[in-house]
């Protein structure tokens, strides 16, 4: 039965992809371009060569983690859009931890600094969860506001109290040091953060679908009254799901530090958190589905560059493509359970 559901999702998503390509083809044809050439470029740019694949996977890596920031709380019925802020906070704390542990053995220090980043992100979103449970503050608005606050704090710190004045390129924080960088997956030029992203999604899926906690969260997400009647610990569930989601985004921030930049700067806040919301909704809040969806969205980002360079399409064309894809996939969700081929046969 599970296979049937997955097959249906795959077919519907494929259908949505075809519709998207058709609409996007019309869009570029209006500009005088050959749609087939554009499709070819989309494919080449995203999956066509080994380099493209590496590019796609590199773009997908942070999205897997920030998507969890929305997906995990969503299972409990919460709409959290604070991935951007949690990522930034996670990155900052990772730097602080890295500086505090300077000189320690990397094998010990790296997991610790990443954990610190994750904890910080988790705490950030858990605070919003607490505000929701204890004060009734809507988590959507509180996490949105916290995003702005986090980015402002980050900018303030990297421009002043945490600034590395030797760095003249841009306001940047103290570096964590070369010893604490985690480098690429051997044999590729994709950083190890990708592995962390996949692992986090898998772990989240196990938690959601294979534990009693996860089951309880599903009940809460479906019907809060029922959950209350059954006596589920609502407060604990709200706090834990928010914490876990925030920890995933915080880990994304840690990855940006130890796998990409080596320091914190305004380049932490480039929209990974917001893109993660998109991925979570496309994946229908299923942590395992987040992996292929993140790769798809990463592929669009990666091939967007080729579209710009080959056809002179502006960067905005990639946004349009993403928007059309998103709408098409969402419309296809309406067809779930309606297609005869996938209906469960009566016993």
């Amino acid at each position, binding site marked *: 039965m599970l296979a049937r559901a997955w097959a249906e999702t795959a077919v519907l998503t494929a259908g949505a992809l075809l519709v998207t390509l058709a609409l996007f083809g019309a869009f570029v044809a209006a500009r005088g371009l050959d749609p087939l050439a554009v499709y070819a470029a989309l494919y080449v740019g995203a999956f066509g060569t080994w380099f493209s694949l590496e590019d796609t996977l590199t773009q997908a890596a942070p999205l897997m983690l920030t998507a969890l920031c929305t997906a995990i709380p969503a299972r409990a*019925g919460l*709409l959290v859009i604070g991935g951007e802020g949690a990522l930034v906070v996670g990155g900052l704390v990772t730097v602080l931890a890295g500086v505090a542990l300077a000189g320690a053995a990397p094998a010990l220090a790296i997991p610790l600094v990443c954990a610190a980043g994750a904890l910080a992100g988790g705490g950030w979103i858990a605070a919003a969860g607490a*505000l929701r*449970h*204890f*004060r*009734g*503050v*809507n988590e*959507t*608005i*509180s996490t*949105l*506001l*916290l995003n*702005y*606050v986090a980015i*402002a*704090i980050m*900018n*303030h710190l990297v*421009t*002043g109290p945490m600034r590395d004045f030797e760095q003249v390129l841009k306001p940047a924080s103290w570096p964590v040091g070369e010893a604490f960088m985690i480098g690429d997956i051997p044999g590729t030029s994709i950083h190890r953060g990708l592995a962390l992203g996949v692992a986090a999604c898998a772990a989240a899926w196990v938690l959601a679908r294979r534990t009693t906690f996860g089951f309880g969260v599903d009940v809460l997400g479906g019907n*809060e009254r029922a959950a209350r009647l059954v006596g589920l610990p609502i407060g604990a569930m709200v706090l834990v799901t928010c914490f876990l989601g925030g920890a995933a985004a915080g880990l994304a921030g840690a990855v940006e530090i130890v796998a990409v930049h080596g320091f914190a700067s305004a380049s932490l806040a480039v929209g990974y958190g917001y893109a993660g*919301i*998109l991925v979570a*909704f*496309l994946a229908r809040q299923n942590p395992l589905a987040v992996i292929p969806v993140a790769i798809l969205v990463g592929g669009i980002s990666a091939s967007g560059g080729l579209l710009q360079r080959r056809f002179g399409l*502006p*960067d*905005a*064309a*990639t*946004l*349009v*493509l*993403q*928007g*059309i894809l*998103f*709408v098409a996939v*969402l*419309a296809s*969700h*309406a067809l*779930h359970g309606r297609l005869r081929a996938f209906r469960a046969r009566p016993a």
Partner: protein
Amino acid sequence: MTPAVELGWWGVPIAVVGGAIRVSTPYLFVSLGETLTEKSGRVNLGLEGTLVMGAMSAYAVAYLSGSPWLGVLVAGLAGALLGLVHGAVCSLPRVNDVAVGIALFLLGTGLAFYLGKPYIEPSAPRLPHVSLGAWSASPQVRAALEINALFVAGAVLAPLLRWALRSTRWGLVVRATGDNADAARALGHSVAAVRTLATVLGGFLAGVGGSFLSLYYPGTWNEGLSSGQGLMAIALVIFARWNPTHCLWVSLLFGGATALGPALQSVGITSNYYLYGAAPYALTLALLVWSSSPKQALAGAPSELSISR
């Protein structure tokens, strides 16, 4: 050119008042539009994209036609169109309106940037303003009290919308759809149609709000024009407890708080500018926490709204 009167610290409250009026207008329009939409039971997070699309189309049309008001109209129509798409897709079963909103946010922003490329350089004609400060000898006060026509329109619209929602039959239908869809259906109204119409009108207002950004203040079109203002305005709706007149006060508060940082910088408080920049958001969060309670979690929230369940 009249020489400016030496202001010193008085510049700060004058700037805050001026900023409250200047900066609040797009927030006001978007939040009024979203209030209407959410009262009918639907969330439209796509208003950020609508705002940007409105700004771009207003600027382009105003530049091409020479008439800023035509630009405002077209901006509203563009917003209405995006609202129509939102309403239509959300009318399909089992479609999550939050997700559709995000999709249209991307689509609207992408289309606006794409179509708006040729209009970044030119200068479009501006919307007119009313000078309420003509009595003052101080040019600064006069500048602060230059009220834009759209702000006046919004300030009138807010109580009007509140009255319409409370006291007219049409308002009742909208509220019924938002509070209890089954009851509304039983009364013979098409829930989908009412919600779509509310979304279309909401989109129109958001588009008009966007036109303010490009045709008055800051008065330009470029891709960095809105940094989440539409999204923030939607958050303000929750803060305003879905009450249109509260939207007016909340927008003014937010606009004033936004002007505080730059005003302080100009009197010599030049450090910590990022923290002052966070002031509007931190203030809103603090007030939200203070004014909320777990019992009446979201008083005034339409029960059918997906984010308030």
